[in-house]
């Protein structure tokens, strides 16, 4: 078996806060392969962005990786020196399309100057080479190559987003982390951005970790997905397997929250409450308080990932004590439609 592009292995990230130690990500594991768009879904506050920042080694000052490992092509990023990580991996290997990337560009520098500075931090390309590459990247995302000399404020929101993608492509990374890349865009722009991302993936074989709260986007764009709830991984597996047979009550609720066009009056699933903040180190299922089928076990023992029963996929894990029961229940619900 070949080494996956990105392996997250039992990762736990905590933040020091005034209220004590907050566990933002707890015991999360999944893999992203090259040439795939991998979806990471969760509500706001579920730890998606923390996970992204942990991967790229840019957690906020009060955050730290407690345990676990992040491997990139077999290299443990978590044990690299900061200097080596910065110089060799950031942007060079792992690029990032930030949340709200329309505000992320430096307003005082021309785009081509920002590109040049980033390129020269990691490579010894000449200015002409960088310029040429950046123009081609602009072309690839549907922007006029001549506009590389402009400032961010001369672009519309969607164009800034695409300029950011062009910057992400500049050094030909193997992995792009896209953190809510389309949240601020209208549906048409959203679709365009994903079309560009997918074209780029097909051409270069880059792996994309797509972080979003929008399950429909994941269903459309990704082959595999992971569902995060309050820092715990609820379910991970191929999109088709999870769509057909959700093995975690949270995933089921999320899928049940889509309106059915043929039956608009059907009750939608409503998820009560908020994901809890884990300030006591965990040791229980974080979904237990919102779960319709939780038992005493759920509140005292943290579930471990296990292969989903009767799933068409060999790689479909669920982190639920009661997934066997749920699955039967879930299948019957689906049949009755």
């Amino acid at each position: 078996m070949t080494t996956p592009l990105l392996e997250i292995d039992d990762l736990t990230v905590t933040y020091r806060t005034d209220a004590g130690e907050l566990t933002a990500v707890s015991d999360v594991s999944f893999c992203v392969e090259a040439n795939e768009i991998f979806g990471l879904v969760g509500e706001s506050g579920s730890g998606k962005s923390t996970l992204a920042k942990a991967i790229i080694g840019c957690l906020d000052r009060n955050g730290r990786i407690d345990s676990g490992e992040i491997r990139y092509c077999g290299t443990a990023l978590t044990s690299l020196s900061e200097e080596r990580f910065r110089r060799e991996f950031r942007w060079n290997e792992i690029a990032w399309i930030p949340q709200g990337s329309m505000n992320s560009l430096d307003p005082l520098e021309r785009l081509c100057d920002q590109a040049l500075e980033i390129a020269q931090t990691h490579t010894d390309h000449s200015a002409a080479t960088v310029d040429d590459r950046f123009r081609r990247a602009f072309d690839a995302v549907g922007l006029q190559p001549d506009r590389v000399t402009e400032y961010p404020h001369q672009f519309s929101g969607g164009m800034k987003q695409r300029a950011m993608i062009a910057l992400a492509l500049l050094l030909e990374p193997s992995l792009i982390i896209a953190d809510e890349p389309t949240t601020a865009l209208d549906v048409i722009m959203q679709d365009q951005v994903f079309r560009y991302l997918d074209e780029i993936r097909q051409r270069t074989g880059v792996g994309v970790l797509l972080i979003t709260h929008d399950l429909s986007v994941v269903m459309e764009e990704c082959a595999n997905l992971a569902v995060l709830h309050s820092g715990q991984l609820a379910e991970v597996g191929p999109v088709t397997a999870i769509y057909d047979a959700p093995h975690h009550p949270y995933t089921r609720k999320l899928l049940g929250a889509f309106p059915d066009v043929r039956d608009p009056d059907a009750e939608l699933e409503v998820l009560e409450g908020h994901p809890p903040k884990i300030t006591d180190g965990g040791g229980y299922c974080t979904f237990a308080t919102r779960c319709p089928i939780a038992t005493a076990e759920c509140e005292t023992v943290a579930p471990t990932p296990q292969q989903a029963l009767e799933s068409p996929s060999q790689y479909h894990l669920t982190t639920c004590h009661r997934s066997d029961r749920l699955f039967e229940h879930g299948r019957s619900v689906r049949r009755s439609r």
Partner: protein
Amino acid sequence: MVSVRYVGSRALQTVFLLWFMLTFLFFFFRLMPGSYLDIMMYRGADPESIAVFKENWGLNDPLYVQYGRYLVNFLGFDAGLSVQYREPVWDLVRRRMFNTFILVAPAITLSYVVGGVIGGLIGSRRDSRAGEHGLGALIFVGSLPSFFVGILLIAMFSMWAGLFPTSGMVSPEVTRTYRDAVWWRPYLTGDFAMHYTLPFVAIVFRYLYFPSLIIRTSFIDVTRQEFNEFYRVAGLTPRARLRHQLKHASLPLITLYPLSMTWALGGMVLIETVFNWPGIGQMLVQAVLSRDYPVIQFVFFIIAAFVILSNFVVDLVYGVVDPRISADD
């Protein structure tokens, strides 16, 4: 970026403002209660000599004639005579303005440089002890009256340590030695440097807080902007990231520095008085007390002209440094 049209319209505005200031000052001082004539009467001048004075100085003409004459003379680089000294205003004020300028301009500039660094330092450590204490110290320094700082320095370094002269600009011996040399020769002496040190330090120390606090606040604002995270994830070195932050944080200084520089033209009365520095500030106070309108009008006009012109330059510079500004115009 900076279009010809933009420069042209701003230049036109600038010229208009300069004319407006000149006119405003002329009429403003004539509308004020009291004039040099009142002072003459108060000092016991008889009606005949006052009549002669009015006749000689053209004060019997209607105001608009006086204004026209003033404007024409001014355009010919003639700001009139000082009523109390009967000397051309320009001859009277130019040495004073020079003295003030060479003291205040470098001091304010240095306070911006040092203050910028201090502000950046305590801004980047705002969560720590050092940041809090630094802020406290700055506010303390900023609330000291400048004459107090001056007196303190004189007490410490002149009276007690005996390192520097207590006041004045050059010693009488030096003035005597260079009586026949060019006018700027005394400024090149070590004696001048010794006299220069304390007032210079006083100004730098006293006015440090202003750019420091501005930079601190703007630095904190800047570190919250999202481009920081982008640059971090993009793997820029901490140094390169700091450089970008400083560029952003120093934007407000482009506007504020010229405003602080007006002190270099109008003088710092308290500092000049404490150190007995023969600057324009002292002379201005004298001129106001004796209703010496030509002098006051001229100095005020120079200050106003400096503000107007520097704003014009700032607008142009800003357009270059921050591309977002001129684009909206």
